[in-house]
């Protein structure tokens, strides 16, 4: 019999046999129905174990993006481009990086349009406080 993939433990999934799988390899997002999902904040959603929210890639990182609130213009580019939905934003205000889901790809830094950038990559072991102290100055426009 197929197991109830909405309520199984994440850890149990890897031990499932062929006979316990959901026919057609369908993956569920939530354990319970969620009406009007856009109005429910991420941390309140009843994620099912097959939702990628339950599967973290933070330990893939060798460098991490650090966010500098003072420079950010809330353009949402990083939120749009992040491939792992690890940029936390509320009411169009950038809040920061969800490090559990960030694999350190650096795309958010690449697309950040401010000068200096509001997101920069720093070594994984460096404190964010320390990183903010090392933030570079505004770059002058190059003259031809």
């Amino acid at each position, binding site marked *: 019999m197929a197991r109830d993939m909405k309520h199984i433990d994440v850890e149990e999934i890897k031990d499932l046999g*062929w006979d316990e*799988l959901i*026919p057609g*390899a*369908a993956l569920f997002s939530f354990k319970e129905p969620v009406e009007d*999902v856009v109005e429910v904040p991420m941390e309140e959603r009843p994620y099912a174990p097959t939702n990628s929210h339950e599967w973290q890639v933070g330990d893939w990182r060798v460098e991490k993006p650090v966010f500098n609130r003072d420079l950010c213009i809330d353009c949402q580019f990083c939120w749009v481009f992040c491939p792992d939905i690890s940029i936390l934003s509320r009411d169009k205000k950038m809040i920061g990086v969800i490090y559990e889901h960030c694999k350190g790809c650096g795309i958010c830094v690449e697309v950040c349009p401010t000068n200096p950038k509001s997101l920069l990559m720093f070594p994984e072991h460096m404190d964010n406080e320390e990183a903010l102290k090392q933030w570079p100055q505004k770059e002058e426009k190059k003259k031809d």
Partner: protein
Amino acid sequence: MAKRMELNEVEVWDGNMAAAQALRQADVDIVAAYPITPSTPIVQNYSKFLADGYVDGDFIMVESEHSAMSGCVAASAAGVRAATATSSQGFALMVEVLYQASGMRLPIVLTVVNRALAAPLNVNGDHSDMYLGRDAGWINLCSYNPQEAYDLTLMAFRIGEDLRVRLPVMVHQDGFLCSHTAQNVRPLQDEEAREFVGEFKPVNSMLDVANPVTHGVQTEEDWHFEHKARQHHDLMNSVPVIKEVFAEFKERTGREYDLVYKYKMDDADVAIVALGTTVESARVAADRMREQGIKAGVVSFRVLRPFPFNEIVEALGDVKAIAAMDRSAPGGTFGMLFNEISAALMAKGKHPVVLNYIYGLGGRDTTIQMLEEVYKQLDECAKAGEAKYPLQQFIGLRGPKLSFY
């Protein structure tokens, strides 16, 4: 609400009209189609029924057969009843998506009007397309005349959509010999057919937005094998459901279907195994043989997949010689029927003479006389207790005799 169509007790329908009427009565929600000879009239008729208000659904005219099946996959995953029709080159173009449909466990119904595969280009009937798709993980039902094309199309929805099965189903009929041959068909009235087929039961519907679901996921060496095992298990275990549906259909109509079709096999010494309209022509030939004292019978597959392993061996009983008649170019080996029947017989410890006949390619006429010749050869083999003819012969072919082994 769709209008009711008043049908006569006996209609004269060709196989295409029969299949189209079954799609109409099954209240198919989405037909995504790209027409191709000889299956064109199925979707053409359906779209006319739709335009005339006889069905509540939608017809999506797409740009290729690949898209036609993709449209059906999307509609079925979204949670509605989907069906289409195709033949030959169109079927070939659909093949990639056939595997998607079965792997995603979507109970789509595909009415296949069997036609030769090019080159050379040919619009007439043979079983090349059926053979191409037989391992795509679909349930394969085979009809031999328009009545059966109608009956099996209705039953295909019940079988595929059963929650114990949830697999797509193909219903095969011969191009032109069935699809364009009008014969007596006894249809169910609309309300009887609707009651038999029942409401579509969506499973993990994509349109259920409060319960978001991902279909068509990627798995690698971690999970692919398990999903394929589950799929094969469920296909193999669809047999009891198929039998249940056949039994209920018999109760309603009196028309009997079984996994394997048998004609005069109780005392037969020799048997033809074939598919499509040839099964019925072989009955005519078998009767004539019996007038001449040769105990001839006919066996066929009603359900080609899942393969009725036990039932086919049982049906062939203790016949001494069998003709496996394959209507598809064998591509460098024996025909499929020869290979599969021989393997099943050997596995069950039976060793009759089995001869492989390749016939009727591209719609070449299969005459009763030709089938009588096959029986006569089988009779010689049966009496001698060994193959007196080459194991593979091309029959009805111009030029020098072509045979192997």
